[in-house]
């Protein structure tokens, strides 16, 4: 009746169902948390070049360069069901070619316990700002936004946009200097 197998089976089943139940409660407990918060960003230096994109089509495309300031405090976003924040800074703009362009310029992974009080001055971008064509020169409304993707211990993976954005213009001439 009560062999080792049946006892082992009972223990395993019970452990697994308790674990599943606790995980589900952990997911439920953070379902309604509001993860929005404010962020201030600003561009410092903005230039644009027109060079061949050897990584892709090999055609001459507009390549933007910029440095930016970023200030935000994300410490309070962390709770027991947030394992990691994936921050990303997006440039969004419209060109005659495309009705929507989104380019991620910079990203950062913040694990729980790491410093989430960010104050960057004159940061370089992490990725190249290639346009899909020649739409960056003299563009007068490129919007920078900061967003984060929340990676939980178990649960949903929401993408949240920070409150606050920054719009900037590109110069009307291509720069000839090395950047």
């Amino acid at each position, binding site marked *: 009746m009560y*062999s080792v*197998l049946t006892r082992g089976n009972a223990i395993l089943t019970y452990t697994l169902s308790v674990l599943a139940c606790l*995980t589900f409660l952990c997911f439920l407990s953070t379902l309604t948390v509001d993860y929005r918060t404010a962020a201030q960003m600003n561009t410092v230096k903005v230039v644009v070049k027109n060079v061949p994109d050897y*990584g*892709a*089509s090999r055609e001459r495309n507009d390549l933007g360069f910029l440095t930016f300031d970023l200030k935000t405090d994300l410490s309070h976003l962390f709770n027991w069901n947030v*394992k*990691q924040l*994936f921050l*990303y800074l*997006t440039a969004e703009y419209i060109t005659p*070619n*495309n*009705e*929507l*362009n*989104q*380019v*991620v310029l910079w*990203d950062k*992974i913040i*694990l729980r316990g790491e410093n989430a009080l960010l104050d960057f001055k004159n940061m370089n971008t992490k*990725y190249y700002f*290639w346009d*899909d064509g020649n739409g960056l020169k003299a563009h007068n409304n490129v919007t920078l936004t900061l*967003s984060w*993707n929340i*990676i*939980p*211990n*178990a*649960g*949903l*993976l929401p*993408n949240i946009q920070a409150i606050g954005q920054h719009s900037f213009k590109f110069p009307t001439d291509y720069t000839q200097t090395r950047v």
Partner: protein
Amino acid sequence: MLDSIFDDVKRMNKRQFMYQVLSFGMIVSSALMIWKGLMVVTGSESPIVVVLSGSMEPAFHRGDLLFLTNYPEEPVRVGEIVVFKVEGRDIPIVHRVLKLHEKNNGTVKFLTKGDNNSVDDRGLYAQGQLWLTKKDVVGRARGFLPYVGMVTIYMNEYPKFKFAVLACLAIYVLVHRE
């Protein structure tokens, strides 16, 4: 122990044996129904995937489970985690959208990158492919469950273990009586 199992089988009559076979069939078919039902609800051809590589660490590790949706009316946006297939590779890839360009007629092209990779995915795409489009996407990650997928990874890596587990389950269902 084996003797007692065979005793159980011997003591069964024909009807009881048929009943056990039917309940075994029920389990298999309801699993299939749940999978196909999820496909309908989520719109994705593969609603649950197991992460197989470390290219999204530390967010996703090998063996984590992802729940996907793939609703055509929801646009793809930068920062989302997409699961996509590349021609010539059997295994779908789970990576994040890095760049996106959408034309007036609604066609979208985008570039992806793994959080843990230092370069974008152009080297992973098919020969000459520079961008992904909507038809490459299997789904977008919406939910996350850690570790659970390790079981299927073990099963795929050690086929003997898979057959042993399946055989044990089948014997248990066929022989076990309430």
